Structures are given as C-alpha cells and as structure tokens.
C-alpha cells in the first residue's frame, strides 16, 4: 500500500520529496488506513479522513522503514513545518524523539520504547550523529523540497541498529545536534530532526507521519508556526541535560537564583575549548537581559549552545525559543511554550521527564485511537485557526496532555457546522457528505466562518446534517464520524431549535397564501374557493418548510422556510388540480403537482436529508409557489367556459417563463418543464427571486426575508395573473362580439 501511495504521489507530482507531494502521500496513507482504495480521487472525496495514524515513534522498525521511504524526506520538512495540530502531539513525540526530551524519556522509561526508540537510535550513534546532522544540514541547504533520502536513510539505518544504552554524554550530543544549524531554514532544521526521528519510526509511523502530514497539509499556516516551535524543540534541553547544567551552575554559583558573573562564566565556558569568537556569540545569545551575568536559565541556554556547537551544530543567529529564559516576555506562543518548558525544567528536571513521558506515550496511544485522533484532529484544525494555540502545542511535549485536554473541551462545533455549510453549499447530494470533511480538513481558515455559517447551517442542516453524515458512506473513518457526530450533534442541538423555527413560517405562508388564494379563488374560482382555501389552510400547516419537494428530484433540498410558502401554495394547487381535470394541458402538471405535493407532504414528515442546505430552494419554492398560483389562476380561467385555446395560451407563456426561471434555479430545473402555467410576468418576477436565496450563508433572517419577499412576489404575481385573466376574458368577449357582428354582417354582404 505504501508503495502504491508512493507511486501515486510520485506519479502525480514530480518528486516525492516535495512537501505537497508529501502531504498527498500522507493523505493517501490516511485513505489507505481508512480502508479506502488508494487513489487520487480518494484524496478529494474523502475529505474528512482521519489523520493517518502513525504509530508515531512507536515502532522503530517502522520508523526505519519510513526513513527509507522517500516520504521521510518530506516528512522532515513536513514534520517540522507541518506540525499540524494533531500531529503536533505526534510530531513532538517524534521530535521529542529527535529532541533531547524524547531521548531523555527513553532513557527514563523503557515503556516508551517506541517513542524513545527514535531518540535512542540517534543517540546511540552519537559519533555518527554529528555526521548525519551535518549532512542534513547540508541537505537542507540544498533545497527544501529535495531531500535526499538516500543520504539520511543509510545514516539512519545504522542509527537504528545501534541502540545501546545511551550515555548522558550522548545526550548533549544528541541535543546538540537536534537543531541543525539551520538558522532560519526551519525546513532544513526540521529535516534533520525528523529524519532522525523518522528513521527510528517504524513503517507504521510512516502512516502516522502521513497523518500528521495530512493534518499538516490541512493547516499549512499552522505548520509554519509549528515549525518554528518545532525548531525550538530540537534546541530544547532534555531533562538530563538540564540537570547536568544545573549541577554545573551550582559549582560556580551555589545559589540557583543567583547570577554567574561574566568572568566566571567566561572561564567556565573557555574550558569547552571553543573559539572565543563562538563563545562570544553564545554569550550574546544567552545573556538575554544583557546584564553581563548569567542566570540559571541563561546559563543553561549557554551551556546548551556550547554543547550544540561542540557537536558540530552551527549556532543560531538568534536564541531559540526553547532556550530563552522564562522571564523574557516573548510572543505568547513562544512564551507559553517556553514557560511551560522552562517551568518544567526549572521546577525539577526529574519531574519533567515523567510528565513528558506520560504525555508522549499518552499522546502516542491516543493517536492510534480514532476517536481521539479525530477529535484532536478536529481540534487541531480548529487550533490551526489560532496560531497561538498551535505554537503552544508544538513547543511542549506536555502538549500532548494539553492537547487532549483542549481537544475535549473545544467543541468542534464549528467545524461540523462549517462542514455542513460547506457541504451544503458545495453539494446537495448525499455524496457530498463525504466532502464536508474535506472542507473541514482543508480549510481551517473556514473556521472563523463557522459562526456565520453555523446559524445558516443550523437552519439548513439541522437534521439533514445528522442524517447526511450518518448516512454518508464516505465517512469511513469512525473517529471522524464520531467527532463529526459529536460536533454535529452539538450543531444539531443548536440547529434543532432552528429546525423548529421553520415550522412557524408555515402560518405565514398560510396567511399569504390565503390572501393570494382568496384573490385568485374569489375571482376565478366560483366553485372551489372554499375548498381551496380550506385546502390552503390545511396544507400550510402540514407542509413543514423543509421537505422539498420534490418535484422531481428528491434530493433537492428545499429551503425550509421558503418551502413554507411554496408548500402552502403548492398544496393548494394539488387540490385544485384534481378539481380541474378538464384541462389536458394541466393534467400533466396537475399530476406532477399532485405528486409533488404528496412528496412534499411526505418529506415534510421526514425532514431529513434534504440538505436543507438548499437555500436556493427558496427561490425554487417561490417559483413553485408562483407556479402554483399560476396554475391556480390558469385553472380559474380554464374553468371559465372559454375555449381550450385559452388554456393553451396561458400555457404557452408560462412554460417559457417557467423554463427561464427554472434554469436560474438548480432545483427547479426538472420541474420547470412541468410547470407550464405561469405568466411571463410571474416568471420574470420569480426569476428575480432565485437570486435572492442563493447565497448559502443566509441566516434564518435572510431566509425568512426571502420567504417574505417570495410571498409578496407571489401575491403580486397572483394579482397580476388575475388581471391578465380578466383582460383575456375581455378580449375574448370582444372577439365573440366581433364574430357575432361579422356573422350579422355576412348576410348583408351576401345581399
């Protein structure tokens, strides 16, 4: 499968190493993991893939495999950059493995074998690590996209093999080399640490990585942030290292809260045999408050940099975030990360590892679980919207816990709604259900829109969302569904009130309908006004806005609100239709209307699916209403004992307008042909309406407003229709009189 994925990615793109390609690979992995066939289409259709689960840093063998995979090359880049929300935990785990933290944890707890393995492996070959690191450094310089797998691969392989216990000395080395000298090129930086981590990772981890990547792809912006934070991670001081540094600090300055004077620090660091120039630079970096003395944090940072330098890593141009002293108020994200990290360190190095280790394993463990992953993924996607949260997330190992903590409380609310919105907007068909997740995945930025959408979503989606999602086949990922379900439920709950809202509209259309019906019926229907009205009265309530109708395409989503008016109107038409079977022209329409009405009724009950998304159905509804009115009115004149031509004439214009109108409206298209009775005016009026409700993001108010508009239009059209009918009658009468005169004159002419 992996090969398949690789081929797919490679086939679609130039190089597998490209980040985008990597993301694709990740997605494919996720797809594969979810059991779907690995195809490019799956990427697009299965949008809500659960993050590919990588047994991140769990299986060393896998990591090795992954290292071999070209994806590794991408991984490093993507990992570092990507650190997508969900992956962050993972990545950090991996990075943790890469970083000292992981290493430390590994040492501290064998339980974390897997997670630590990546770290261990690198550590284990400390002598080689500098090599690789340097190589990696060079690699990154070569280009972000092109990561020579081969290079890192072989290196890593030996690393993975070597897994002896790592000495503390290796820690500094390891830690030193975690951050490739890359100073600004986080990508390259990411490369090295991730590659190392990757190597340690098992093939399964590849999947994880892919998941991470997919997630990352979802949140590119976050990735950058994460990368920056991930960048810090390599610079992070492991607990053991920290302890070591603290001990050294004590030898110089017994008071941990005190300062090390510059001179003493100078002597101390001179012992490291680094060139003065570099020591000077290290000092500049670490003496953050520029007071000429080193606090414990500053000292640790300086020591860390010294260690890194000794291991061959170039010094960064600026102090890595993880090394900055707590007191410095940096950006919130960095600060938080720093503080959390620093606090952990300062408080007690011993404690830090445990916290990290549990977090890491827990994170790892949670990852495999779809639910969590989905939730995390979702939360991450949400987080992606806020860079702050992301950075925090990344920079700390502990983040695993916070993540989980955050995951739960954070209602994915928006995403589901957003998904709904997107879904609804994008497609009305059931197949769209699969897509909703993709929008979610791909558009973290959409989250902000959720608020706006939520209302509309609620309004429209409501039940449909639940139904749609539950029934969606595309949701293969349980977690996704679960998460979505959860969110959906939340949204549903939110929407349910809205769903109830649509019912109120029925009375409104009812009233208007009655008005229009009274207009039309009083004028034209001598026989059935009462019945029609009664029918009207009965129908509107029975017709809940939502179900649309039918008219043909079942899936058409009918705007619930508009449907009210429509349904009310249409309901009348069915009634009238049966009553006027005389018109062959109308028969088809009547049948159609009847069926439509029936369908509407049925759907009214169900309310489900239909993607209420179809707000445009408002226009359709209005259209239908108009049509219904037209029908009614057409029938009225038809009732009048005029010639059949009369019936035909009205039919002729109506079809055109209807068609025109229908074309403008998606849903009504199939119905357009059916409806043949609309005057051109009405059609024109209706045509204008479709544009109204099209906008998906309507709020309920907008929908209701459009409904009112439609109703008003309906009444206007109805009146117009009646007037035209009247004119038609007059004209016919005139014609009759003229004919009579003609006949009278004829005999004269004969004479």
């Amino acid at each position, binding site marked *: 499968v992996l090969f398949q994925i690789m081929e797919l990615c490679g086939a679609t793109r130039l190089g597998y190493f490209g980040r985008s390609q990597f993301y694709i690979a990740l997605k494919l992995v996720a797809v594969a993991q979810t059991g779907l066939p690995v195809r490019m289409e799956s990427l697009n259709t299965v949008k809500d893939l659960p993050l590919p689960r990588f047994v991140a840093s769990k299986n060393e063998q896998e990591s090795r495999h992954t290292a071999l995979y070209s994806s590794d090359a991408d991984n490093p880049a993507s990992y570092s950059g990507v650190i997508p929300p969900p992956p962050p935990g993972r990545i950090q785990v991996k990075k943790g493995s890469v970083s000292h933290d992981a290493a430390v944890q590994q040492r501290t707890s064998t339980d974390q074998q897997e997670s630590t393995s990546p770290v261990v492996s690198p550590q284990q070959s400390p002598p080689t690590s500098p090599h690789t690191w340097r190589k990696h450094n060079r690699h990154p310089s070569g280009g972000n996209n092109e990561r020579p797998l081969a290079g890192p691969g072989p290196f890593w392989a030996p690393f993975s093999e070597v897994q002896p216990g790592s000495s503390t000395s290796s820690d500094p080395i390891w830690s030193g080399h975690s951050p490739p000298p890359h100073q600004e090129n986080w990508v390259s930086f990411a490369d090295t640490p991730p590659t190392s981590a990757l190597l340690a990772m098992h093939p399964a981890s590849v999947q994880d990585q892919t998941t991470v990547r997919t997630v990352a792809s979802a949140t590119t912006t976050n990735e950058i942030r994460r990368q920056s934070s991930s960048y810090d991670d390599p610079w992070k001081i492991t607990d053991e290292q920290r302890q070591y540094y603290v001990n050294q600090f004590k030898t110089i300055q017994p008071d941990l809260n005190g300062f090390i*004077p*510059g*001179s003493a*620090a*100078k002597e101390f*660091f*001179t012992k490291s045999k680094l060139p*003065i*120039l570099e*020591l*000077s*630079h290290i*000092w*500049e*970096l670490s*003496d953050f408050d*520029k*007071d*000429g003395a080193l606090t414990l944090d500053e000292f640790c940072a300086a020591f860390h940099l010294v260690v890194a330098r000794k291991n061959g890593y170039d010094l960064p*141009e600026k102090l890595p975030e993880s090394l900055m002293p707590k007191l410095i108020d940096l950006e919130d994200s960095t600060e938080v990360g720093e503080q959390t990290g620093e606090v952990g360190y300062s408080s007690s190095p011993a404690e830090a590892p445990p916290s990290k280790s549990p977090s890491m394993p827990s994170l790892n463990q949670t990852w495999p679980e779809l639910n969590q992953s989905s939730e995390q993924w979702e939360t991450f996607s949400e987080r992606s919207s806020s860079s702050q949260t992301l950075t925090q997330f990344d920079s700390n190992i502990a983040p695993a816990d916070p993540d989980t903590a955050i995951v739960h409380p954070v209602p994915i609310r928006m995403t589901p709604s957003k998904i709904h919105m997107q879904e609804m907007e994008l497609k009305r068909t059931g197949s769209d259900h699969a897509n909703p997740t993709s929008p979610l995945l791909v558009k973290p930025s959409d989250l902000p829109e959720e608020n706006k959408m939520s209302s509309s979503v609620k309004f429209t989606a409501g039940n449909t969302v639940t139904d749609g999602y539950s029934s969606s086949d595309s949701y293969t990922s349980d977690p996704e569904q679960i998460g979505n379900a959860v969110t959906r439920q939340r949204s549903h709950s939110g929407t349910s009130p809205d769903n109830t809202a649509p019912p109120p509209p029925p009375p409104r259309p009812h009233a208007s309908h009655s008005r229009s019906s009274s207009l039309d019926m009083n004028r034209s229907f001598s026989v059935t006004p009462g019945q029609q009205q009664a029918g009207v009265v009965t129908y509107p309530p029975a017709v809940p806005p939502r179900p649309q109708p039918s008219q043909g395409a079942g899936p058409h989503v009918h705007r619930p609100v508009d449907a009210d008016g429509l349904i009310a109107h249409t309901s009348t038409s069915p009634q009238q239709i049966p009553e006027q079977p005389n018109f062959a022209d109308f028969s088809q329409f009547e049948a159609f209307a009847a069926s439509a009405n029936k369908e509407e009724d049925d759907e009214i009950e169900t309310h489900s699916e239909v993607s209420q998304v179809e707000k445009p159905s408002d226009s359709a509804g209005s259209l239908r209403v108009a049509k219904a009115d037209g029908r009614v009115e057409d029938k009225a004149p038809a009732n009048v004992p005029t010639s059949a031509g009369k019936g035909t004439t009205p039919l002729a214009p109506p079809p055109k307008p209807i068609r025109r109108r229908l074309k403008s409206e998606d849903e009504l298209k199939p119905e357009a042909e059916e409806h043949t009775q609309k005057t051109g005016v009405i059609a024109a009026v209706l045509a204008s309406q479709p544009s109204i409700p099209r906008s998906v993001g309507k709020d309920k108010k907008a929908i209701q407003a459009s409904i009112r508009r439609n109703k008003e239009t309906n009444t206007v059209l109805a009146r117009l229709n009646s007037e035209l009918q009247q004119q038609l009658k007059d004209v016919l009468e005139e014609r009759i009189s003229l004919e009579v005169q003609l006949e009278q004159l004829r005999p004269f002419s004969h004479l």
Partner: protein
Amino acid sequence: VPVSVICSPPQNYPLYIRSVPTENELKFHYTVHTSLDVVDEKISAMGKALVDQRELYLGLLYPTEDYKVYGYVTNSKVKFVMVVDSSNTALRDNEIRSMFRKLHNSYTDIMCNPFYNPGDRIHSRAFDNMVNSMMMQVC
C-alpha cells in the same frame, strides 16, 4: 544612507567599520578616519561635557562631496563616526541621534560579553545585524 559606520576607541583605531556600498569603500574608510580627528578636536574643545549625544558635521570634510559626517562619542572616549549620503535628505537629526543611540547600546552589549576583550575588533554577529539593519533602514 549611512554609507559607513565606524567605532573606534581613544587610540583611534577602528574597532568596527562597516560600509554599505562596497565600492569606494576605501574612500569612506579614509573619510571616517580623518573625521576621527575632528571628533577629537571637539572633545578637547569642551572640557566637562564629554558625552556628546551627537555631533553634527554638515559638509564638514568635503563640501563638494555630497555626504555628511556625524560623530558621537561615549563616556569612555569611544568614538562613533557615521558617514551619510547627503542625497538622503530624509535623514533628520533625530534619526541620526537614534542611530547613534542604537550603536551605543549595541556596543554596551558587546562590552558585557565576558568573552570580549576590550580593544578587540568587534566580531559580534548581533552587532553586525544591528548595523546592517540600521543601514538598510536608511537606504
């Protein structure tokens, strides 16, 4: 456009010299070096107030050439000389002062570094970055 910056201790040898336009660099070096003498004159002229936040030399050295030379001296007699292109009329006195202040701060930071021996040439990357950013900013 500060084309050149130099800081020198009382011994009048440059601890740090940086020019933006790489061509004619030698000319600027010569200019700033000669301007050190002018600064010394100014220092000796005023007995008590040794610290001049700034000294403005307008067309001092070569009136025909369109650049100005500014000077600044610290309490420890460390002189900063800056050559600015006159075509850059946007440079106001306050800006020059702020630039000197930044230079001074950076220099102080360098001094704080225990690994820095006073009198050594300044190789600090932070200092370089600061100077570069300053010069770019004015360009």
